[in-house]
């Protein structure tokens, strides 16, 4: 049969550590996998569309919706005045995230009203007919403007400090002060936001929402409608991509659909078109990092001070934990003996930025790698040498800026293996030779590592539930709090259950995530999906298994130890009972064949005020080597080759994990090179479709792309089957491309100056960096 499946007699089909296909693969290739917009619409379904503001910061003087109301097909128009309870969908309950703007608009593209019509086209057309008068207020669009206007923050900043940084910097033999701009990123999940609400009896409503966080959508919709959470059911079978963009952002759409559905007692669906989705929903934060680093002549870091200013947009959303995580990763894989890091979550009159794969961590890591580059170019060394000299090491060099001890670093081995397998040293020499010829095309190569902390830094989110039923025919129904967005979570968790019962994977059906089945779930985010939900599902399976063992041991008069689940059936003493026969017998004997599983991550704690604790259960590691060519006359570049060695512990599913690594890498490269968000001086986002916002295409992939998992790695912590999280860490492997471009640029000034290439490193930026270095006396031949 297919690649990953083993002989039926010795192993079950689809247990853990096998390369199973995505559980919906067959449906995806035949077009049979339903997304929310594909669901059969009940008779009477209405369609909602949002009316967006056309001012970045202004008082609303008047709203005239007469033409909207009288447009063909329009059934209703909703504004802030129509919200029954609380006009707020702030995920952190900051009461700064209105569903509809009331007296003021805070960014260009903010929802002001919604039209409900018989068809989507009618609603969309009617939404353009509103007449809103604004009295403009001063608007701070970007980080510099926000700082100039006094630096209002959307949430409390964080400070991490260890040692005596002022002294360390003052006494350091070498010191560099610099700045870096790091761009934001649009998620561009292929399926845009969508919610479909179907009213029920009493106060109830069922909402199909494309969300990574059904419980939060439930909580916030209940708050908006002024009903208890038990009246709101949120369900999601699958998303067409999420990447963090569907963590907090879906709540507004769910709330509008639910509000309209209850008001009109008809099903209501809302799907913004792509341009509005990009304009009206949050993105990855762009940052400005100000760094001050002291180091010795060998390139060892002695002290680091850094300020991490982020464009958060008009409200807190998840900017607090996002900017916190930037600081948690400002060290990347390097030991900072003395350190002070501060976040500045700045309020701007732009869309409120939100979660995006890595959650601020990547921005911190990029900053750390810039510091490494600065040191390397200052000392005339290969940046890899600086990296190795600064990796976390034995006691004395193993404590992070947040006072967690790094006990599981495998970077020494991982990086040296990759260095050899990619032939890094010889290729670097060849590239230096090539560049010495002084041609128009220059090359660069870089090996960059990543160390990424796994756990929600909000400790209470590190819990999960699962619901498992074994039916009397022996089939198994699995449900858990995690959501499927393509990452293969449903497949992995089903593999865990298959392995527990030693049954084939196709005996297990995974159903849509539903707040009715597993309550109080956490977002499927922070790479934690398999870690948390896999454990919860295993816990549920173990409960049922124990009951079956007790039943079998009593029925056939053997000890519990003599009942074991194997691929050929359940061994009870000397006899083998097929799983479904045992289940049928157990049912007749009135054994409870359903269980709710639960898991909470042990040993983690975090004191934000003190800036101390163990916020992460463990770290995931990886490294990438990329080689690029740039055209010094145009700034254009291409990735010639990338080699990746990535750590997922003992992989639950190597095929799915490799897919995450490949996809994460390419998404990271896109973030750092071609994906440029551009707001004009009025605060209008002018890059709101793939025509103006360049996402990597098939042709942008590295010419040679070697991806391997570190198969020898096992999680030191007792995670699910010793695996490690994989969702976010690989995104940061894309930094190898940025640094390789940087090296190619540096060649025009004989590597004497750090190119200080900011991101996204678009061809324009690369060209400007080349020109700048040449002008600075890169007086080369």
């Amino acid at each position, binding site marked *: 049969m297919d690649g990953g499946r083993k002989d039926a007699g010795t192993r079950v089909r689809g247990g853990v550590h096998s390369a199973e296909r*995505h559980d919906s693969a067959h449906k995806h290739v035949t077009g049979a996998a339903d997304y929310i917009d594909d669901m059969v619409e009940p008779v009477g379904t209405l369609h909602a569309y949002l009316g967006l503001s056309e001012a970045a910061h202004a008082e609303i003087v008047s709203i005239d919706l007469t033409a909207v109301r009288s447009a063909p097909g329009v059934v209703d128009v909703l504004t802030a005045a129509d919200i029954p309870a609380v006009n707020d969908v702030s995920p952190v309950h900051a009461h700064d995230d209105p569903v509809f703007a009331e007296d003021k608009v805070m960014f260009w593209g903010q929802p002001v009203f919604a039209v409900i019509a018989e068809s989507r086209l009618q609603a969309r057309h009617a939404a353009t007919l509103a007449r809103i008068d604004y009295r403009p207020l001063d608007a701070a669009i970007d980080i510099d403007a926000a700082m100039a206007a006094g630096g209002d923050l959307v949430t409390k900043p964080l400070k991490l400090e260890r040692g005596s940084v002022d002294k360390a910097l003052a006494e350091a033999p070498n010191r560099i002060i610099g700045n870096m701009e790091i761009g934001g990123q649009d998620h*561009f*999940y292929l*399926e845009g936001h969508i919610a479909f609400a179907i009213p029920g009896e009493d106060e109830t409503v069922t909402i199909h929402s494309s969300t990574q966080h059904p419980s939060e959508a439930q909580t916030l919709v209940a708050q908006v409608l002024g009903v208890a959470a038990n009246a709101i059911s949120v369900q999601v079978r*699958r998303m067409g991509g999420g990447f963090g963009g569907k963590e907090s952002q879906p709540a507004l759409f769910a709330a509008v659909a639910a509000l309209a559905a209850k008001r009109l007692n008809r099903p209501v669906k809302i799907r913004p078109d792509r341009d509005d989705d990009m304009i009206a929903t949050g993105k990855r934060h762009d940052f400005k990092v100000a760094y001050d680093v002291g180091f010795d002549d060998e390139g060892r870091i002695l002290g680091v001070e850094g300020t991490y200013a982020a464009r958060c947009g008009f409200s807190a959303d998840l900017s607090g934990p996002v900017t916190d995580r930037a600081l948690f990763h400002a060290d990347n894989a390097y030991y900072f003996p003395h350190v002070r890091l501060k976040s500045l979550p700045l309020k701007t009159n732009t869309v409120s930025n939100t979660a995006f794969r890595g959650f601020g961590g990547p921005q911190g890591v990029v900053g750390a790698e810039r510091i490494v580059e600065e040191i390397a170019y200052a000392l005339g060394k290969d940046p890899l040498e600086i990296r190795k000299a600064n990796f976390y090491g034995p006691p004395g060099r193993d404590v992070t800026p947040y006072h967690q001890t790094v006990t599981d670093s495998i970077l020494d081995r991982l990086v040296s293996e990759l260095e050899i397998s990619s032939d890094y040293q010889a290729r670097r020499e060849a590239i230096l030779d090539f560049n010495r010829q002084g041609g128009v095309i220059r090359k660069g190569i870089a090996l960059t590592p990543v160390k990424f902390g796994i756990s929600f830094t909000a400790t209470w989110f590190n819990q999960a539930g699962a619901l498992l039923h074994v039916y009397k025919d022996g089939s198994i129904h699995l449900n858990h709090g995690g959501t499927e967005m393509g990452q293969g979570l449903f497949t992995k968790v089903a593999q865990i259950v298959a392995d527990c019962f030693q049954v084939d994977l196709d005996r297990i059906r995974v159903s849509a995530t539903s707040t009715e089945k597993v309550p109080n779930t956490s977002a499927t985010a922070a790479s934690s999906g398999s870690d948390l939900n896999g454990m919860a599902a295993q816990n549920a399976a173990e409960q049922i298994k124990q009951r079956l063992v007790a039943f079998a041991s009593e029925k056939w008069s053997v000890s519990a130890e003599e009942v074991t689940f194997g691929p050929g059936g359940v061994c009870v003493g000397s006899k083998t009972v097929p799983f479904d026969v045992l289940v049928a017998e157990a049912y007749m004997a009135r054994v409870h064949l359903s269980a709710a599983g639960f898991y909470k991550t042990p040993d983690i704690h975090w004191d934000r005020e003190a800036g101390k604790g163990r916020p992460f259960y463990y770290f995931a590691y990886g490294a990438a080597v990329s080689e690029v060519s740039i055209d010094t006359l145009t700034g254009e570049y291409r990735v010639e080759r990338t080699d990746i060695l990535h750590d997922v512990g003992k992989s639950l599913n190597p095929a799915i994990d490799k897919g995450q690594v490949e*996809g994460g890498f390419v998404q990271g490269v896109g973030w750092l090179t071609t994906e440029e968000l551009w707001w004009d001086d009025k605060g209008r986002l002018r890059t709101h*479709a793939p025509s103006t916002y360049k996402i990597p*295409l098939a042709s942008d992939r590295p010419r040679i792309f070697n991806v391997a998992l570190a198969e020898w790695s096992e999680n030191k912590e007792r995670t699910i089957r010793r695996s490690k999280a994989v969702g976010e860490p690989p995104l940061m492997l894309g930094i190898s491309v940025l640094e390789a471009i940087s090296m190619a640029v540096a060649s025009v000034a004989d590597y004497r100056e750090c190119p200080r290439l900011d991101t996204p490193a678009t061809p324009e930026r690369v060209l400007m960096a080349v020109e700048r270095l040449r002008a600075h006396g890169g007086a080369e031949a």
Partner: protein
Amino acid sequence: MATVSMTVNGKSVSGEVEPRTLLVQFIREQLHLTGTHVGCDTSQCGACVVHVNGDSVKSCTMLAVQADGSDVTTIEGLANGDTLHPMQEAFRDNHGLQCGFCTPGMVMSAVDLLKKNPKPSEGEIREWLEGNICRCTGYHNIVKAVQQAAQA
């Protein structure tokens, strides 16, 4: 309103549409063939690719009336009963998908490529698929799938 008639996945269909109705709207909303997706609304992402008279077309960039009298194949019409088209099989077996939203369009584009160029180089595959955006996979397994299908 205009009447359109076409053959979709081997069956004759007809319907009343506004002249501005896009082919993708006709397919999804009137024929209820929802495997063809709308990703970007502006003819760039390729999630809506179908075949019209054997050529791949972004169905959000064509009016239903333009397809009047045509022979249309959507992702639902690609398999032969329970037997998957080799391209579908290759995407499934090579993990050429994650969230799956781009998959139908990607498969339909790739099928057209092999019809026009049965033995494409890797570079030709990548260039052909430039009109289909995938945000999940990094294209690695997608290209691999097309290569495998070309050998089938």
